Each structure stands twice: as structure tokens, then as C-alpha cells.
């Protein structure tokens, strides 16, 4: 396997944390937009939206980690195996990162 297909394999290295970046920016943007639009402190609608978003990203992370695990198991010996292992490790680490950075959504006051 060479050329464009292996280049796509390399994109696996940035998939997990790319998803984390989206989750992080989305949560920050929704909170910023809610507060900028005059949502009162503790606004339940804003919290519900953020919790839903957080949950959706966690599901996406779970799926991505599962997908990379499957790909890694399928790879034989060779240069692609290294990329798939690293992609799997990064997908799991990114899922943990989203959980950690998103947890305040469940506990802290909105727009305070």
C-alpha cells in the first residue's frame, strides 16, 4: 500500500486530537455565545446544550477509538502498523482529554 492511501493512514495521527480540538472549541464557543447573548448565570438551556454537545463528542470519541482499535488489529507487520498503533493511542488519549477538559460543563455555573 503506497501513495494517497498511506497518506490517509497518516491522517490517523491527527484524528483523535483533531476531534478533541473541535469539542474544545465548540464548548467554548457555545458558552461564549450564550453569555454574549445575555444568558443569565446558571441558564438551564445553555447548560443542556453544552451537556448534549459534550455527550455527542464523547460518543464520537468512543467510535473513533473503537475504529482505530479494529484497524490496528487488522494490520500485519510493516510500516503501517506503527502508524495505526500510534493513531489508536492518540485516539484513546484524546477521548480522555475531552472528558477532562469538558467535565466543568457538568459542575460549574454557566456565565458566572
Amino acid at each position, binding site marked *: 500500500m503506497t501513495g494517497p492511501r498511506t497518506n490517509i493512514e497518516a491522517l490517523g495521527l491527527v484524528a483523535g486530537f483533531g476531534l*478533541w480540538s473541535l469539542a474544545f472549541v465548540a464548548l467554548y464557543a457555545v458558552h461564549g455565545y450564550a453569555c454574549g*447573548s445575555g444568558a443569565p448565570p446558571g441558564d438551564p438551556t445553555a447548560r443542556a446544550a453544552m451537556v448534549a454537545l459534550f455527550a455527542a463528542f464523547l460518543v464520537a470519541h468512543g467510535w473513533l477509538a473503537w475504529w482505530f482499535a479494529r484497524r490496528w488489529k487488522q494490520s500485519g507487520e510493516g510500516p503501517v502498523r*506503527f502508524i495505526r498503533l*500510534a493513531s489508536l493511542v492518540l485516539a484513546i488519549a484524546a477521548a480522555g482529554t475531552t472528558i477532562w477538559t469538558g467535565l466543568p460543563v457538568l459542575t460549574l455555573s454557566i456565565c458566572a
Partner: protein
Amino acid sequence: MSQDSHAGRAREALRLHHDLEPLWEAPRTRFGFLAATNHSTVGLRFIATAIVFFFIGGILAMVIRAQLAGANTQFLSEHAYSQAFTMHGTVMMFLFAIPLIEGLALYMLPKMLGSRDLAFPRLSAFGYWCFLFGGTMLILAMLAGVAPDSGWFMYTPLSSKPFSPGINSDVWLLGVTFVEVSAICAAVEFMATVLKVRAAGMSLGKMPLLCWYLWVTSAMMLVGFPPLILGSILLEIERAFGWAFFDPLRGGDPLLWQHLFWLFGHPEVYIIFLPAAGIVSTVLPVFAGRPIVGYTWIVAALIAQAFISFGLWVHHMFTTGIPHLSLAFFSAASLLVVIPTSVQIFAWIATLLKGWPKLDLPMLWVLGFFFIFTAGGLTGVMVAVVPFDWQVHDTHFVVAHLHYVLVGGFVFPMMAGIYYWLPQVTGRRSDKGLGKLAFWLIFIGFNVTFFIMHLTGLLGMPRRVYTYPEGVGWELPNLVSSIGGFVLAFGFALAVIDIAVQWRFAAHTARNPWKAGTLEWAMGTPVPPYNLASLPRVDSREPLADDPQLPASLAAGDGYLPGRRNDWRETIGVDGVTGRPEQLILLPGPSYVPLWTAVAAAGFFLSFLFSFYAGAALSAALVLALALTWLWNSGLKADSEPIDVGQGIKLMPHPGSPQAPGWWGMIFTLVANGAFFASLVFGYLFLWTIAPNWPPPQWIDPDPLLPLAAAAALAGGSWLAWRARAANRAGAAGKRQMALLLAAAAGVAASLALIAVPLLLAPSPVEHAYGSAIAMLSGYAALHAFLSAVACGFAWARGNMGYVSPLRSLDVRNAELLWHYTAATGLVILVLVHLLPLAAAR
């Protein structure tokens, strides 16, 4: 092997050397050195120039410490002190740290990757001249007494026109942007090089760790620098033409500057740290006598670290009134970044524990790094906690913390690297006597200066005050810091003397004195301009450890591409992931065009600085013309069959490869451009939702004619460019040329329509930030439509000259890619500018 055979191989090696050296070196004419594009030459120029700037920054630090040594000191005026600390930070960050990394990567990457040069040698040379001219502009301004004086992060409104009416801030904005051009060029160069220009067989999993670090760093530069470039452009436009991006009275917001600056500024810390960590990951296993522990984990950790570092920028803004929940996101990310850093540190410790470490001079610097950087990391955890940060914000505690991180995390590993690779550069033995003394002076001087500075900060001394009164308890810690600072300076002076002495007088050494396993030690010393007389096949992470005879056999021409053919500068291009040989890359030779292009760019920045806008426009046109000249003769005028590269392999020359480095260069340039665009959109939406004094007094005229015309031209141009590629692939040259011409015409039409939007429909950019943002967005789209037109016109002209065929399709594919990007971003802009106000009005 018999003695005759040895002699025969030595003669062959010498013949190859005489064959290749004149081909790869700069012309031996009076001014030939100005045309040099060779990566070793340009890399060493970067390093030497960065070190000169380091000493200028160091002198400024001494001036600062002299001023603060006692209470009520009148050594410097308030204004001069402001210039001194601003220039100290600016020089150290933009003229020393980043360029030193660029120099290291320029010099080292091809050697470690087992190639003969970088993917775009002329781009490296252009980058160097931009760095030199931009840096010189800043230093000359300082000597003229008009240096920037608003702090190295140039916060508005302090740096805005009403509070900084002279050209001081303009010098920073234009000079730093000029230098950043160099950084973006370098990042594109390194991204494409690591992906495509490696030794045969060197898969990503076999690549030296330093190359991984530099690759990830380059990706961070591509995404991290554009926000600062955008911020600088916006602030310069505001200062020059009175627009309103950061003026809260007219719908702007100073916080927008902070966001854009720290979107760059925090990743910058890791952009500086990661290459240094790469040096540690390279040097430490050599002196531990065993391969690094946890290669895959380190690669994963540094990628994770690169990403997370972009989620920390608001931790520089904890005191700006951002809601607590948002602060918590950034506080959590700031704490989390410790984990990938720790993975690397534990891998290094494990490597030491499992090996038999030798305490040579490079290792001494590595141990110094461990001590100081870990201390800086611990205070980093402290300031990541919001309530603590509120207490120490803008005090000397933060100054101490950032110096522990940057000096510990960058300067110490760089010194380790300099001492490690010095024998490789000079061919002379490393001598540790004077170097050891220099290390201890620097180590002790640094800690005396900055450890106690934490206390100065905790005692409440704010940063950036030019003096302080007696009796507040700050005299003694400041005096101690100043004494330590001078010890530190003396240590660096000694280190320079030591390196100069070793360079000139140390005894000659055998190749690979440290018994390292990576390919840079396979070269002769001093390194010949072609690096390797023939190129290796790599089957492991440490090819020299597997085969200690590899250097001799490569020198004798046993690898790929031995000797000289058609006066081509040849190297091998590989599949990005597997390292399978894929193409024969033909590199350009020496050229004065990069220098002249940088001179024209300097003309642009200087004209803008002195408000000579016609001159700036003329210079910009000249830059474009020179860039086209630069690219005009690239490639081949006829299709080629695959060419024998040795070892029974034939490869297609890169103009006939779909994976040519130029294709990847365009992709990575568009990644940087995309980061710029995303920052611009963020700025627009940020002002819309957060800035005071919105909604604006007047919305855009809802007349749909112009935006629809622009949208049609954008979509049509993109479609025509796609048709041009399809026609080229089908061998229909006539249709291709026609489609390219029409796509160019569509680009001109789209550009005109987009320019007309702010002129005819939008409110004035001077009245409110809304008008400013619309003009900026429309200008961005118009500029890209124009550039797409130029790209199509250029491909058309090259097609007429015979540079394009179904096989040699790079011009057409690059023009098409640029057109798609232009259409996508242009349509997003049209929606934001014309539809968002309609939605808001409802």
C-alpha cells in the same frame, strides 16, 4: 578486503567528491555566496545570525538588570526602559528562538533523513533573507531610538495609535510580520521535506525522533503563526488607516488582540520547547548507550502535546473577565499538558536507568535542562490554577516562570545540541574544560537570577516598571537577581569563546566520535555540500549502529544516485508513510532570485512603515513578479521515462509524479492560509458577539446583485479549474488552455466584484468595526480570487511553453487546488457578510 581494494574504493570516493562538490556548492564568484541555497550553508547562516541576535537580546537583559539592581535607579528613563524590555522579549522570541530552531532544522533535517537537501532550497534562502532584513529593521529602529515600547505582546490599546503615536509599534508589527514570513516558509519547507524527501526505506516508524519533533513543530508553526500575522495586519491597518478592530468606542475590542496574540503565543512556547526536547531525545540515548525507551509513546506524546498546547491560550487571559466556566476549560487543559510532557520525561529517565550513562558535556546540559525545566513546569502548574494566577498575574513571579520554561526548556537543550553536533560540523574533537566552566556559570547564574525572582513577584513587584521606591522589600532580591544575571552573561560569553576555540584549534576527530546511530554521522566532516556521495537504504532507526561501515560504502558510491548526471541535483523522494522510493527529485541550483524577492519584500514593509503606500503597492507587485520568475523554469519541458537511480530501481523524475513535493508545498501553504482564514472568521464573529457598541449604526446594503455575481464567478472559476485538470488528464491540451484562460478571467471578475462590496454596499470601515471586518473579509476573498487568476494564467503560459502535459500536471493541479480553496473560503465570506446580517435583522 585487500589493501588494493581499499585504495580503489578510496579513489572512487575521492572521484565522487570531486564530481559532486562543484555541483552542490554556491558559485565561486565574488558575490556567489549571495546565491547560496544549500541547506547546510543557509542553516548555518540562520544559526549564526540567531546567535548574534541572542547577544543583542542578552545585552538588553543586562541593561534591564542594571536598571533594577537598586531602588530609584536613573540609569534608564522610563521610555528607554520600555524599549529595552520590549526589545529583549521580541529579540529573544522572534529573532533568536524561532530562527535558531529553523537553522537547526535546515541544517539537520536532510542529514538525518539521509537526503541531499530540503524540498525547496530557494524557499529556505528566501526565508533567511526575510529573517535577516526583518530582524535588522527592528535592531536599526532600536538604535535610532524608535524601538517598540509596548511590551513584546503589544497589547492594545497601549500599542494603538492614540497611546503609541510614533512609529514604534509599527516597527514591531511590520518587522515581526516580515520575520514571520520566514517562519511560514520554513514550516512549509520542513513539512514537505519530512513527508517526501527521506532515505529509501525510512518509514515514519524508523524516522529519527528529532525529525518527528521538527515535523510536529512545523505543523504547529503552520497553524500557530497565522493568528499573529492576522492580528499584526489588523492592528497595522487600524493604526495606518484608522479602522476600528480594537477600538471599543467603535465596536472593536482590545480582547480580540489578546485572543489572536495568545492563539499564537501559547503554542509558541511549545514550538520552542519541542525541538529542544527532540535534541534531548537524540542526545540522551547516545550517552546512555542504548536506544530510547518508548519511541512510539514519545511520538504519540508529542503529537498530543502539540494539540493540547493550542487549548491553553486563554490561560494568559485569566484576569480579563472571561466567565469562570470558560476559564475552567483552559485551566483543565493547562494542567493536562503536563501528562504528555511527563511521558517524554519518564521515557528519558527510563532510558538512563536502562543504559550506562556517560557524563560528557552535552549530557551535562541535558541534566541542567531536567532540573530547570522541571522547576519551570511546576510553577506552570501553579499559574494554571486560576485563583493563584490572579494573585501573581503581571508580577515578577510570571517573569521567573517563563524564563525557567524557556531557558530551561530551550537554551539548555540547544547548548547540549551545539556541543553534541559541533564535531560533526567542524570535524574537530570536543574538549570539555572551558565548556564545563561555562555550563556551571550559566547554571548557577540562571538560578541565582530567576529563582529569587519568584519571591520578588510574590512580594508584589509588578513586571515592566522601570524603577521602584526604597523600603518596599524589593531591593535585596533585585540586587541578587542582577548579580546572577551578570554571572549568567559571563557564562554565555565563555561558552562562545569555548566554541570558537574548539572550532579553530581543537584536534581533528574521527567520524562519529559519540558512536551515534543516526545518518548525520555518516557524512564526512566538515560536511560536503552534497551530504552523501550516494544515498542509503534504511532498515532500522539507527542505521549506523546496524552497519558501522555504512559511511565508507556510501562515500564509495554503493548506495542510490552515485555520481553526477546532466548536472542535475538529485535526491530520492519516498512514499510518506512507508518510505518506499517513489520519485527522483531534481532540486534547483543556486539563485539570486530569493535575495531579490526578499529585497522587494523589504521594500514593501519599509514603504508601509513610512506611509509610502504607492511604494508598498509597487513592491508587492515586484514580489509577485519575482515569485513567478522564480517558478518559471521549474520542471521539465518533455515527459521522461523512469530513470535508473541505482540498486536496480528506476524512478520517475518528480515533475511526472502525482506526489511531487510542489503539490505538498501547496497543500501545506493552504493549511497555513486556512488557519489565517479561520482566525479572521473568528475575529469577525468575536466582535459580533462579544465586543461593546454593537449592533453597528448601519448594516450592509442587502442588494443581492454584487454578492450573487461574486458567488457565480467564484463557483465558475473553481469549476473551470477542475475542467482544466480533467482536460489535461485526457490529453486535450487545447481545452485545457481554454479552461485555464476562462478560469483566470473568472478570478479577475470575482476579484472585482468582491472589491466592490465594501466600496459600494458596506458602511465605512473607519466608522465601526463592522465595516472594518467586512472590508477585511472581502479583501481576503478578492485577493485570493486575484491570486487564483494569476495561478491559472501562469499555468496557461507554462502550458504554452511545453511545461505541462498529462504526466507533468503540477501547474494545473496546484492552480485547481488554489481555486477550490478560493471558492470555498470566498463563499463562506459571502454568507458571513451578506446573509448573517439578514438573519440578525430578523
